[in-house]
C-alpha cells in the first residue's frame, strides 16, 4: 500500500498536471474577494443605502449566480478538481443533478403548503 502511494506521489512530481503556482493561488483569491465585495456592494450599497434595487426574485438570482461562480472557483482551483482526470470530475459532480431536482421539488412543495395548511396567526407590521 505504501509503495503504491509513493508511486502516485512520484508521478505527481514530474507530471505537474497543470496545478497552480503561488501566483495562480493569489489570483483566485482576488477573484473570490472581488465577487464577495460585489455582493456587499449590492447588499449594503444598492439595496440598503441608496435603495436603487428592491429585494426580490431578480436580486436573489444575482446573489445565487455570484454564489455559484464563487463555488466554482473554490472547487475547481482550491480543491483542484479542474486538474483531475475527467472521469473523476464526472463521478464527483453528476450526483448534484439530483440536488437540482430536489430544490425544484421541495420548493414547489413549500409553495403549495403556503396555501394549503396555514393556520398560524399573522400580525400586520406598522
Amino acid at each position: 500500500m505504501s509503495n503504491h502511494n509513493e508511486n502516485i506521489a512520484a508521478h505527481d512530481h514530474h507530471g505537474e498536471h497543470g496545478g497552480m503556482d503561488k501566483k495562480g493561488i493569489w489570483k483566485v483569491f482576488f477573484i473570490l474577494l472581488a465577487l464577495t465585495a460585489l455582493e456587499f456592494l449590492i447588499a449594503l450599497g444598492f439595496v440598503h443605502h441608496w435603495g436603487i434595487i428592491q429585494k426580490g426574485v431578480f436580486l436573489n438570482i444575482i446573489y445565487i449566480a455570484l454564489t455559484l461562480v464563487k463555488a466554482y472557483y473554490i472547487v475547481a482551483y482550491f480543491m483542484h478538481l479542474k486538474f483531475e482526470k475527467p472521469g473523476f470530475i464526472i463521478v464527483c459532480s453528476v450526483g448534484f443533478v439530483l440536488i437540482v431536482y430536489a430544490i425544484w421539488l421541495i420548493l414547489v412543495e413549500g409553495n403549495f403548503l403556503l396555501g394549503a395548511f396555514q393556520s398560524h396567526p399573522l400580525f400586520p407590521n406598522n
Partner: protein
Amino acid sequence: MSTTTVSQLDKVKDGPWSGGKSPWNLEYGKIMMWFFLVSDAFTFSAFLIYYGAQKFAQPTWIDADKIFQSIPGIAESGQPLVFVGIMTFILIMSSVTMVLAVDAGHRNQKNEVVKWMLWTILGGLAFVGCQAIEWTHLHHQGFWFGRNPATGLEGEAIVEALAPYFTKDISYTAALQFSNLFFTITGFHGFHVSIGILLNIIVLCMTLNNTFERRGTYLMIEKVGLYWHFVDLVWVFVFTFFYLI
C-alpha cells in the same frame, strides 16, 4: 521478457480500468475524502433546501438586514452585514493559506507548511470565535433552538417583541422556524469548522514530527485541505441564503 507475440486477449486488458494501475491517478484516501465531501454536500443541501421550503411555505419571513445588525464592541445596531462580512473574509483568507500549505507540501518545504498551517488554524479559530459572539448576541435577543423573542408572550406583546425583526407582516411561526434553522445550520457548519481545526492541528503536529518527511509525501495536508475548502464552500452558500437573501 521480449515482446514478440501478444495475444489479442492480453491486448484488450491494457486500458486504464483493467487493473494494476490507478485510473484516476489519485491516492485511495484522497478519493474517499472526495466521496465523503460529496455526501456531506448532500447533507448541507438538504438543510438549505428545507430552509428555502420553509421560506416558501410562510407568508412572511424575518428580514436578515434587521436581525444581523451588530458589530461586537463597535456598534450595537444599524450595521447590517458588516460583521458577517468580516467572518466571510476570515474564512476565505484561511482557505488561501491552506492552499499555500498544500503548495508548500508539494515542494517538500517543511517550514513553509508549518507557517501556512499555523495561519490556517488561526483563521479557523477566529471564525469560530466570531460565530460564538454572533450566537451569544442572538441568544441575548431571545433567539435559540425552539424559541424566539416572543416565546411565552401573548397578544400584542408578541407583535411588540417581533416587530424589530420584520419588514413585512409579523409571524411567530416564521420567527421560530428562522431561529431553529439558523442555529441548526450555522451550528452544523460551525461543528465542521471545529473538526477542521482539529484535523489541521493533527496534521500540523505530524508535520512537526517529520512524519510526512519520512513518508516522502505531504499528501495528508492535501486531504485535510480538501475538507477545509469544503467548509469554506459551505459557508459561501450559508452566507448567501441566510444573510443576503
